[in-house]
């Protein structure tokens, strides 16, 4: 089973669980498994046309999956996935 770490703001949609385990062979399958278990997460992770929201970063261990094979990235049971919403801002517009 692969562990998915749920960030603080999304735990209200994962029955308050900080970690969810799924059986999956790719990142896409893992995220699909996650939203199957916790459907309320879907709209916070994905746009209406099914794409990952631009501010949602998905890490496989310490690597951003955008720089791997994106959601097609293969995963092993010992891998962990972290969902990390972006942090940015500043007084400038």
């Amino acid at each position, binding site marked *: 089973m692969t562990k998915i770490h749920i*960030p603080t703001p999304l735990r209200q949609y994962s029955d308050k669980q900080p970690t969810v385990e799924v059986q999956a062979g790719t990142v896409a399958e893992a995220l699909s498994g996650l939203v199957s278990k916790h459907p309320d997460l879907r*709209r916070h992770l994905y746009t209406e046309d099914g794409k990952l929201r631009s501010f949602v970063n998905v*890490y496989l261990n310490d690597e951003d999956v955008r720089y791997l094979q994106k959601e097609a990235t293969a995963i092993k049971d010992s891998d962990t996935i*972290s969902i990390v919403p*972006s942090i940015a801002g500043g*007084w400038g*517009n």
Partner: protein
Amino acid sequence: MLKVRKADYEAVRQHGEETYPHECCGVLLGEINGEDRRVSSIARCGNTRTDSPQNRYHIDPKELVRIQREGRERGEDIVGFYHSHPDHPARWSATDLAEAHWFGCSYVITSVEKGKAAITNSFELNGSDEGDKKLMDEKIEVET
């Protein structure tokens, strides 16, 4: 309400003085209890907006992954973030709101005027999604 120890509160403000005239940024770790967030440690971060550091900040998600992992090992969660506004008020900007996605977490802003930390304010990101989010003033309780 955001509860923070004096040492961590001062460290957040000092970080802004050190990076002046650029914005500093970092993570607040601790626990969330209902409406309150209690900070038990802070983690300084680098500002990747080297193109405009005087008025923008961005934390590398890879740094967040590490900080989150180290926090988990200590039994801490991410409860908020901090950054500074060099020579600008300690109020959230349109950019701060547009880029805020950690609902239920605190966003702490320190105004640093001519190199000295002035006012530090905190705001909780409320709302249910990107369509109705708002940054609401929250009290900071500094524990001595």
